[in-house]
């Protein structure tokens, strides 16, 4: 079953800016879908339209079989976790959790059960009588999640929930969110600009750019089969190398150097190549490469340099000897992705 259907939704602000230009996505039951994209791509606007905090200019949002376009946020059966927690500062943790249920006239006994269940699950039972100001960032984040959980919503909406936390806590909470969502088996939308969060959390990723969907797919699909140059360079760290190349049908030429490459396309193209797919080779075969900078990241080493006039980065095992000067690099033709030079669309070989 499909929990949420977003059908050709558009958002135009009164000042004429169109933040979302016709987006259609489905979220299946129990699925965690991540909306990822650079700031201003419309991902938060889209989430807020699902929540009911922004009006929908055009299109339909169907949640659990019911069109919710005109419903108040409180009537939509959603729960939202905000970036800066958005806890009620004057209420104790317990009251924060219970507030939404109380307003729905849930019986007190039921409220107590749900609150203690959520508190147990999130390990915040000992803080129930404290005020949010007495909690650390990570604890507040748990409370914010608890407030969403007690509602037993049809869908969870996460709006960059981890961006206020420090790096270590963020990794830990990311894992906890994933475990929690798997355990509750509730559908969720998670908005982030962090592609690592997107890759690790998502069942499916929706990559957004300038108010439009660039690609929808599983993390593996998005990573290995990006549909556009935007997706290719946005997903993955370090980002995919983008080189200007020319194909003739039988070969691929970069700055006067060429390798045999069979493709039903000839002319200038954008060539994408993951840094970890490039190897340093000995002997004559391969492209001449000038090393400029080395970056040691512990387990891996990034080697920056250029082929002719084009910047390129490769990743290698840090145990290997550090390269320098003029060396040769090589890669498998299978690892090369070609994109149309003008539109940025993938050319399938």
């Amino acid at each position, binding site marked *: 079953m499909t929990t949420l259907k977003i059908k050709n939704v558009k958002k135009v602000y009164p000042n004429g800016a169109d933040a979302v230009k016709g987006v259609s996505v489905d979220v299946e039951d129990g699925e965690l879908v991540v909306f990822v994209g650079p700031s201003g791509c419309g991902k938060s606007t889209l989430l807020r339209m699902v*929540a*009911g*905090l922004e009006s929908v200019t055009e299109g339909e949002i169907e949640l659990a079989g019911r069109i919710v376009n005109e419903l*108040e*946020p*409180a*009537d939509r059966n*959603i*729960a*939202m976790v*905000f*970036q*800066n*927690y*958005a*806890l*009620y*500062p*004057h209420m104790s943790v317990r009251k924060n959790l219970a*507030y*939404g249920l109380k*307003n729905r006239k849930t019986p007190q006994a039921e409220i107590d059960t749900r609150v203690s269940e959520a508190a147990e699950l999130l390990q915040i039972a000992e803080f129930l009588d404290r*005020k949010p*100001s007495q909690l650390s960032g990570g604890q507040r984040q748990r409370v914010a999640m608890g*407030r969403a959980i007690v509602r037993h919503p049809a869908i969870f909406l996460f709006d960059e929930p981890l961006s206020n936390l420090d790096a270590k806590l963020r990794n830990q909470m990311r894992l906890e969110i994933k475990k929690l969502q798997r355990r509750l088996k509730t559908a969720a939308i998670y908005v982030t600009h962090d592609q690592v969060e997107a890759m690790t959390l998502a069942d499916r990723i929706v990559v957004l750019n300038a108010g439009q969907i660039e690609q929808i797919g599983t993390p593996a699909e998005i990573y290995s089969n990006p549909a556009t140059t935007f997706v290719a360079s946005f997903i993955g760290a370090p980002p995919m190398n983008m080189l200007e190349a020319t194909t003739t049908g039988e070969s691929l030429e970069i700055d006067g150097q060429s390798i045999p490459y069979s493709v039903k396309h000839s002319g200038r193209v954008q060539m994408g190549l993951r840094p970890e797919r490039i190897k340093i080779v000995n002997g004559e075969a391969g492209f001449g490469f000038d090393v400029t900078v080395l970056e040691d990241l512990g387990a891996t080493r990034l080697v920056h340099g250029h082929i002719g006039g084009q910047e390129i980065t490769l990743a290698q095992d840090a145990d290997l000897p550090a390269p320098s000067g003029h060396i040769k690099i090589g890669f498998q033709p299978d690892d090369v992705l070609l994109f149309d030079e003008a539109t940025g669309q993938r050319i399938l070989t």
Partner: protein
Amino acid sequence: MGIIAVFFLWPAAEAIRSSFFLEDPFFGNATFVGLDNYRVALTGSDYQRTAWFTAVFTVIVSLMSLALGLMLAVSADRVLRGKSTYKTLLMWVYAIAPPVAGLIGVMLFDQHIGPLVEFVALFGWEMRVGVNYWDTGIAMIIVSTWKQVPYCFIFFLSGLQSIPTSVKEAARVDCRSETRRFWTITFPLLAPTTFFLLILNITYAMFETFGTIDLIVKDQPGNSPVTLVYKVYRDGFRGNDLGGSSAQSVILMLIVLALTIAQFRLIERRVHYN
């Protein structure tokens, strides 16, 4: 420190000293009378009547300006377009010098041309400001409140705007009823502002409305209601009873002191959010 000594400590000490004397209004001969001035002040029916009016006046002016300021701030906060115009217009009154504002207020209640007097006459209420005790009192309350509303408005508006948008949005997800959201989320979050304004309004109503009252009674209070501060002035400078007036002002000083202590005590106890 020198300034405080010259302009506050010395006059205060002088007031306390003279409150124990019966001063001759013409030659400055003073007779020590102990606490007689206080006794006369506190037991006099005129003083009690004034104190009673001051209490009623203070409570009504403080609460009404709070309520109106809050109402206006809430609606201003909701306006999306022309917000700054709306704000400026509401704050105008505050920018007007007190005597001018008082004068405008007085004109509203003028016996011959006052639009408010004409308006209430439609309901059969013949308002006689300056003649009828309570009519005058009501005029004072309205003008004083009107003067204080913008002040409350500014503070409430900034208080409202300092509530994080995401908290308001979280409340929208949690609670359908806007009224309920206001009383359970917005109003409690405004509590520090409300409390601060309440103390300020009490001080305003008790002490700073002097100018307004003076304009309404046109320097000739007669039977009209006045506040304790005005009575100090009237008895001291119109009645030439410097000793009695000093005693009254010492009593007022004590009230201010009590208010200030209460204010600091409560401010310390006040919950600090964030």
